[in-house]
């Protein structure tokens, strides 16, 4: 040891201060900042998810009331014509059937109008169409009594889920004491139950919260995503390959590059205005159609895809290109046999992130009329439909308690789709990723 000291010519304690402590302290500080930043981000994420899930999970169950419904012939087919024309069954007085069923089940006199009104208010208006569809599908039900599960009205549903403050005086709440009493009777008998809310996924728009669903919106979103994928992936990839591999580097291509980067930052509502004036006013395409929405979102997604694709093309090592070119592969062969396969994970990630972005986009769709009350499923992308985020926007404007939970429920559905898409992007990238 003493040798070492004499060799350096300095005693050990007089070593030069090169700021080791300071450097480590700086590093520790920086790490602490990083952890704080992460914690803040995670806190807000957790708050968002908690708020949405706690408000929205109840939207996935729905209260139904089981009633004995007698399809009395004089109410559904008074003139006995169903033999020649089964369609007359559709004109039956189904409201009356429900009232009679309620009267029988809850034990009040059907002519007692006050009780009848309170009781029928517990059942969703949509139950009438359900009964009608049931009877039209099976005319042999006439004259029979069947136990049918009917959708409870939205407020009853909310009360059943414990979302209505019952300490408020009766006059100031939507659910009356008599109804609560009936609910208890029904619940004790097992006739008022909560079941998985399939209607949330299959129904279209409705002004009655219990009958409103995301079906039409999901269909519209699906049509739009297909349009965006089919158009923006080939156009975006072709444009990027041309710009990156073939185009000469000059002022024009520089200008194009700057503009593409700018377009990626243009507010989406501007794309909506563009779509309105070009696709609808100029090209005469229908309003509220998923195809137009898809075209607008394609325009919006293209810059994202082009930027991602160009970046991943650039990231392919030049040695691979040289190797292929040196073997006598043409430029086209080099790109399609070697460069593109290596760039694929990046391209797909960019595309899926672009799609996920498009899936959650609302503003441009408002301008092309996709914010509409659409109850019927669109059979083609040219028919009116809405989209998931627009449906959320519309439900958020409704006052009923049941719409509030549906808004959050729809947000959960949308977030689930987004998470699935991003997960897909990660899996695809893992799958395709290769080292070189």
């Amino acid at each position: 040891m003493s040798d070492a000291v004499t060799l350096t010519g300095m005693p050990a304690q007089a070593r030069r201060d090169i700021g080791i402590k300071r450097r480590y302290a700086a590093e520790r500080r920086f790490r602490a900042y990083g952890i704080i930043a992460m914690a803040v981000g995670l806190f807000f994420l957790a708050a968002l998810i908690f708020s949405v899930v706690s408000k929205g999970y109840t939207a996935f169950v729905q209260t139904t009331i089981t009633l004995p419904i007698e399809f009395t012939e004089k109410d559904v087919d008074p003139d006995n014509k169903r033999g020649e024309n089964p369609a007359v069954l559709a004109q039956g007085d189904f409201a009356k059937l429900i009232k009679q069923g309620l009267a029988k089940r809850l034990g009040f006199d059907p002519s007692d109008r006050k009780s009848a009104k309170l009781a029928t208010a517990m059942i969703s208006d949509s139950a009438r169409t359900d009964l009608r569809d049931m009877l039209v599908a099976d005319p042999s039900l006439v004259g029979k009594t069947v136990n049918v599960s009917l959708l409870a009205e939205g407020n009853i549903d909310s009360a059943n889920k414990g979302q209505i403050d019952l300490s408020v005086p009766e006059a100031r709440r939507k659910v009356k004491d008599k109804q609560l009493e009936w609910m208890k009777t029904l619940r004790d008998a097992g006739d008022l139950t909560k079941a998985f809310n399939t209607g949330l996924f299959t129904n279209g728009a409705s002004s009655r919260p219990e009958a409103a669903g995301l079906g039409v919106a999901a269909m519209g979103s699906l049509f739009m995503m297909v349009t965006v994928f089919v158009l923006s992936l080939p156009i975006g990839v072709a444009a990027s390959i041309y710009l990156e591999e073939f185009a000469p580097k000059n002022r024009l291509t520089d200008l194009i590059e700057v503009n593409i980067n700018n377009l990626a930052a243009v507010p989406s509502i501007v794309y909506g205005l563009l779509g309105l004036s070009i696709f609808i006013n100029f090209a005469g395409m229908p309003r509220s159609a998923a195809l137009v929405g898809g075209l607008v979102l394609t325009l919006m997604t293209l810059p994202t895809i082009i930027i991602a694709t160009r970046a991943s093309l650039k990231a392919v090592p030049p040695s691979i290109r040289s190797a292929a070119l040196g073997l006598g592969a043409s430029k086209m062969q080099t790109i399609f046999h070697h460069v593109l396969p290596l760039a694929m994970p990046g391209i797909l990630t960019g595309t899926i992130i672009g799609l996920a972005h498009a899936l959650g986009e609302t503003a441009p769709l408002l301008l092309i009329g996709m914010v509409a009350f659409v109850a019927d499923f669109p059979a083609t992308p040219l028919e009116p439909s809405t989209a998931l985020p627009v449906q959320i926007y519309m439900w958020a404007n409704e006052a009923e308690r049941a719409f509030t939970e549906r808004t959050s429920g729809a947000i959960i559905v949308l977030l689930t789709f987004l998470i699935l898409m991003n997960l897909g992007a990660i899996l695809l990238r893992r799958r395709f990723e290769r080292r070189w």
Partner: protein
Amino acid sequence: MNMMAETTLEPKQAQAMNEPVYKMIGNKVSVFYGTKQALFEVSLPVREKTVTALIGPSGCGKSTFLRSLNRMNDTIDNCRVTGQITLDGQDIYDPSIDVVELRARVGMVFQKPNPFPKSIYENVAYGPKIHGLARNKADLDQIVETSLIKAGLWNEVKDRLHEAGTGLSGGQQQRLCIARAVAVSPEVILMDEPCSALDPIATAKVEELIHELRSNFTIVIVTHSMQQAARVSQRTAMFHLGNLVEENDTDKIFTNPDESRTQDYIMGRFG
């Protein structure tokens, strides 16, 4: 020792019997990158079935000259070549010459081993496939095997032809790249510092390989190692600052060069 004996003997014999055959001839070749001139009127003949080494300090234009022999410089945007380079008497910069065909005749091995991220088999088979050299699968298998044998890699990889080429060691990867270049049966093989990323053992193997390949191919090799140039080549060209200083038999360059600059460089006085 045996190798050195050959290198000293052969050119003399060739000259005694007849004039040397020139495979490629560069005539007043100048290369510009934008406005910067990298090569100044270099006139250099390349003899057939001979290893020609290009030596010189970094940035002297030897790689630039090499890359202009199969027009790899074309891939650089602002690169311009003037003068004339012929392959079997035909100007390779003539508009009638297809660059794809040229590169099939003049193959290239790069400084860093750059196998495709595919299987060993596919690496070698790629060239024959795109040029349609194999009529069927058996043909292709044959080409792959012959090429790997020529590159001295067959025994090491014959049991794992379908594993990734990138999984081989550095030296094996470089020999795979040589096999890949050989597979398209080029007439000339250009090598741009093929051993600079390899350890001495792998280097020795590649050098031995170059020595064997000489019987079938014309080889031009850029190298920074004087010993390597002396070991593998029969002709050596010395470049400096974009000019060709001199070109002569390797043993003449290394024992008694005409130019003092060559002498200085070989002795390690600059560069």
